[in-house]
């Protein structure tokens, strides 16, 4: 395996002399090649990002006055029950969606990597279908499945004597609904990441373990999980960041009051609160302050993730 990775002999590094003759234009050309990305990133990524911090210090009406108010937006935010409600909802939905999703993906990847699986390609491709389906379409289907009066789920629950549950209107119900949609959308993607990583583990390791008498659970526990550790850490970090930014699903499920995700903001996430303030109420300053808070939360959680994951590595 490693043989193919080492460079063939005939492409040995050029003699140092060649390097001296490289002109200025040639040196700069590399920057020209990467410039398009950084220019676009600067305009659409970096600048808005930095500008958000600036706007957060203003009472900013997009078509009226912009008044500098210092940190008043943040003071208001910390005393705003709607903000804390949104933060709580976000964490709740994130936990409900991420933990089961990663576990499911882990098991699925293990199964899809099985040597004796028939039609492996078909199954491996199939798990990606939810990921390429539009969120709006997913939302329509799931809202109907979870519907109070005509939903399949309530119909099934009816057989075991459960009264119809109004999922969208209740706090935990709406969180469950959104978490299910998020999970549905992302588990295939995560599974493929795990699977790709698993496939770099030589099959002989699994076979050797099987010959040594390791059962499926032991192979999963002692080969699959350890060899996936780096990619598990990666998916935990990315799904955490993604989970804190859940927006489309809550926007789409409560069409009666979309920007608040229901009458009592029962499933309004932080990004939705940001959007409501910015584009529903046109309070750009306050919306930006929420954006800054969201940024800080993502950084903190990513840092915790990083520390934890390096500890796990060190423990090994």
């Amino acid at each position: 395996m490693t043989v193919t990775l080492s460079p063939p002999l005939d492409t040995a590094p050029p003699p140092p002399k060649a390097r001296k003759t490289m002109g200025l234009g040639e040196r700069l050309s590399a920057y020209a090649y990467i410039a398009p990305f950084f220019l676009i990133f600067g305009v659409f990524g970096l600048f808005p990002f930095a500008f958000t911090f600036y706007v957060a210090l203003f009472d900013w009406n997009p078509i009226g006055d912009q008044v500098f108010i210092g940190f008043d937006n943040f003071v208001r935010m910390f005393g705003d029950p709607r903000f804390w409600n949104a933060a709580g909802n976000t964490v709740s939905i994130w936990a409900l969606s991420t933990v089961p999703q990663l576990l499911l993906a882990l098991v699925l990847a293990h199964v899809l990597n099985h040597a004796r699986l028939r039609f492996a390609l078909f199954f491996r491709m199939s798990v990606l279908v939810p990921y390429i389906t539009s969120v709006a379409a997913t939302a329509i289907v799931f809202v109907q499945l979870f519907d109070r009066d005509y939903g399949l789920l309530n119909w099934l629950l009816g057989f075991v004597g459960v009264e119809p549950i109004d999922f969208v209107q209740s706090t935990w119900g709406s969180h469950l609904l959104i978490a299910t949609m998020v999970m549905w959308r992302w588990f295939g993607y995560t599974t493929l990441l795990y699977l790709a990583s698993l496939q770099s583990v030589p099959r002989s390791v699994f076979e050797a373990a099987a010959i040594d008498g390791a059962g499926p659970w032991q192979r999963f526990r002692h080969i699959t999980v350890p060899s996936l550790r780096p990619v598990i850490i990666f998916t935990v970090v990315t799904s955490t960041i993604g989970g804190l930014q859940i927006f489309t699903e809550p926007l789409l499920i409560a069409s009666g009051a979309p920007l608040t995700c229901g009458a009592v903001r029962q499933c309004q996430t932080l990004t939705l609160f940001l959007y409501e303030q910015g584009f529903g109420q046109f309070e750009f300053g306050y919306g930006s302050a929420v954006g800054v808070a969201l940024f800080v939360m993502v950084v903190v959680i990513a840092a915790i993730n990083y520390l934890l994951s390096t500890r796990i590595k060190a423990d090994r």
Partner: protein
Amino acid sequence: MKLRSLLLRAAAISALLTACTPGGGGGGGGDGKSFEFWSFSAINQKLTVDAYQAKRPDIRIKLTEVGTSTETAQSLTTALAGGKVPDLVLIQGDNLPQFVEQPQNFVDLRTLGADEIKGDYLDWVWKQSVAKDGEVLGIPTDVGGMAVAYRTDLFAAAGLPTDREAVSALWPTWDAFIETGKRYKQATGKAFTDNAATSVFYQAVNQVSEKYHSADRKLVYDTNPQVKAAFDLGIKAATAGITSGQSSFESAWSTGMAQGQYAAVSAPSWMLNSIRSTAPDTKGKWDIAKIPGGSGNWGGSYLAIPKRAKNPQAAWEYVKEMQSPQGQLEHFARVGALPSTPSVYQDSKLTGEKDPFFSGAPTGKIYTDSLLGLKPFYIGPDSAAIGQEFLNAITNVEQSGGNPATAWDDALRNIKTAIGE
């Protein structure tokens, strides 16, 4: 891609902020022979544009159907803050106050001759687009009179009258409406109306002489007895067990309508189109009765010309022609939008209009009747947020088991948070 959508929004905000010179720069400079018109989708604006085009072949109109009324207002905000503005834009009444508050963004239509045509329009509708120093920012294109749409077959099954006069007589007041609901529920065991928040409170609160603000534009939502009375009606309906607890325009609401889960729904004139498209199989099973309380308005839109418009004159000529009483009457005949010009309310083209979907109800007559004798009340930039919190409080009682006794106080507290008072 949640991250990407967030970045896109961030990009939109930045595009909006980079060139932030609201109202900056003068207008004009166009060729005067063309103009750009932003309207909503799904309201058949093209028919009226085509009609104008036929009269004035020398003018080129670029019509853009931006999206829903809210999306159009959002795009307009972005455009006003620094993008390319249209020459003419349609603004829905609910979104209007936020723009009226910032009159420097629009052409004061008095400079183009709005005062001459002022008398053609309902005065309380006209006043809603007048800014604090008297600038006229928009010309009312239509209004949203109020009525109740009901299912004749379901009413008959419950032993209630089905004739629209007799049904109107059932509910001279909202209390009587709720009582009728109880009778229906007793007879059939089914819900009478869709929800308390929109079908009762939001109608009743639009029938007041003073809403969330006093005449001198001070906030009075917490002390105005008319608002409290409307709110109490909403709570009464929510706790009477006569609603099916489905918020307007939610998917369950649509299914419920198609399935006949509720028999009556408050229907401002624009709601008729929603009923037609939501429950096409119920054609002919509906009829329309008067709204409890007799009169009221919800909705209606305005045409405005942004300050930086390139062809304000061409746009104004369109407005004058197509929004004249005759123009609005023709528009009503084409798409059913109620004229805001009372002089045509007796015209046979309007009173003679019968709608087969609603058992041949004379929609023009029923709705314009609900518009006469209304008093103007001030609608401020916070009105939408205040109304939303009241709606939410009632929906909470109705659908999520909230406590009706504390609903009013909860609503006031949420409003204070929302509008930062």
